[in-house]
């Protein structure tokens, strides 16, 4: 169903930082919110809807954030869906604005994870992780994704060099992103000789944990037109979570089922996308999402990596992705969305993809027992 009547009119974030001190999740949320207001020229009291996602906000919720910001929202939402949270909040916020429950929704996410917060999060992610994985000393999601990576490599005849091309290409995009924590070029030899984390994954296959925040503003199209704000339209959003009831191999997501509807509703094909932002917790999942969404159509994955990703002909994760920019906890779920909107607004500076008009953003997350359950995707287009 169309999202006509609502638009994305802002996207902002705070620079990512490793081992940051003197900040909190709430200060990060505030900084992203203030940046969003500044970008759009809106006043605080113009915002009447608030969605928040964070792993470390507890015991606070969106309403406590509203109080700390002095907001009186007509619509609030707490999201807890990790790598799928950005598109999930967008989906709900667009409907809320489209149907008049709110007229301007700030969609925010942030996390400031200390190293003990991170350990606690990975061991208590949900009851399955706490009761069945933490006891194995599974080392967090790295071990699960090492198994998925090995399986995809074996099935598709991929080598570590092939996977490395994804990390290297993203690192070269990161060079143009001042918010990224790792911006220096990554060589193939450095990638291949990197310390092993959980074979075949080395440190460059794993996201660096950072403190950071992301924000998006959803507004009624009518009001955005009056205010002459640039509008990014949402052509379609589709989600399918736990699509295989967790009995599969983890190398397909719900996107494989909803891709057809996603493209049909957007009246676009993968070839129409100027930029692609997909959730990159590990390079294997970049390939899985792109394949599920139809970007690899008919091409061997190895050839796809070499001809499309390594050459940057298909601009994938143009911020550097979380592999290079950093993984800000739940805010990682908005990372690709904010980058996509930034590209479509032509505000991406040195990494700007020329004439970018349309973007695909995909989300993936919520580790259960062997892989993650949530998957969603959005097709965006700048109004010209």
């Amino acid at each position, binding site marked *: 169903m169309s999202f006509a009547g609502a638009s994305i009119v802002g996207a902002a974030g705070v620079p990512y930082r490793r081992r940051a001190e003197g900040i909190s999740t709430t200060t990060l949320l505030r900084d992203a919110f203030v940046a969003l207001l500044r970008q759009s020229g809106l006043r605080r009291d113009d915002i009447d809807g608030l969605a928040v996602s964070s792993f470390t906000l507890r015991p606070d919720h969106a309403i406590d954030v509203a109080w700390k910001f002095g907001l009186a929202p007509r619509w609030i939402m707490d999201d807890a869906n990790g790598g799928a949270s950005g598109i999930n909040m967008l989906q709900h916020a667009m409907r809320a604005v489209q149907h008049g429950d709110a007229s301007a929704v700030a969609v925010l996410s942030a996390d400031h994870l200390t190293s003990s917060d991170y*350990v606690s999060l990975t061991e208590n992610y949900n009851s399955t992780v706490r009761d069945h994985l933490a006891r*194995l*000393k599974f080392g967090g999601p*790295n071990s699960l994704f090492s*198994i998925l990576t090995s399986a995809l490599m074996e099935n598709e005849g991929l080598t570590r060099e092939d996977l490395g091309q994804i990390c290297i290409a993203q690192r070269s995009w990161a060079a143009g992103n001042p918010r990224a924590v790792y911006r220096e070029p990554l060589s193939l030899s450095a990638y291949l000789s990197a310390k092993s*984390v*959980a*074979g075949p994954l080395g440190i460059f296959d794993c996201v660096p944990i950072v403190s950071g925040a992301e924000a998006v503003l959803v507004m009624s199209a009518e009001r955005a037109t009056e205010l002459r704000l640039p509008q990014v339209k949402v052509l379609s959003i589709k989600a399918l979570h736990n699509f295989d009831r967790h009995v599969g191999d983890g190398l397909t997501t719900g996107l494989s089922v909803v891709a057809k509807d996603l493209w049909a509703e957007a009246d676009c094909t993968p070839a129409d996308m100027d930029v692609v932002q997909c959730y990159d917790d590990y390079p294997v999942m970049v390939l899985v999402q792109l394949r599920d969404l139809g970007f690899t159509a008919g091409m061997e994955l190895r050839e796809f990596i070499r001809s499309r990703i390594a050459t940057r002909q298909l601009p994938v994760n143009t911020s550097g992705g979380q592999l290079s920019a950093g993984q800000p906890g739940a805010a990682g779920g908005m990372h690709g969305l904010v980058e996509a909107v930034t590209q479509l607004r032509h505000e991406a500076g040195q990494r700007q993809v020329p004439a970018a008009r349309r973007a695909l953003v995909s989300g993936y997350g919520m580790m259960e027992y062997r892989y993650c359950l949530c998957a969603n995707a959005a097709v965006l287009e700048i109004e010209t």
Partner: protein
Amino acid sequence: MTLDIQVCIECGQYHYPSVMLCSHCGSGDFHTARVKSGNILARTEVSYQAGEDSQEPVSLALVEIDASTRVLARLERGARRADAVQLTLSGKVLVAKAMDTDS
């Protein structure tokens, strides 16, 4: 201790970890089946644990116990090259041992 797995009374689907309603048919009626062994589908060695400076790598295996049920287990040293392993619970930790090891 042996491993008891949740089995749907209606359709026979195995679940590990246990669920509230059968993932296959939706039934809420289960019994348990004792599972003693399985086949290794994949293995990995975890050499980094967040928050810990140095330690012994942990070997893990993905073990198939039936066509739609795969469990993650700590792989004992003696079973590192095995294809079939014995599954036991050591405390609450699921362990994959070599087949000839006494439980």
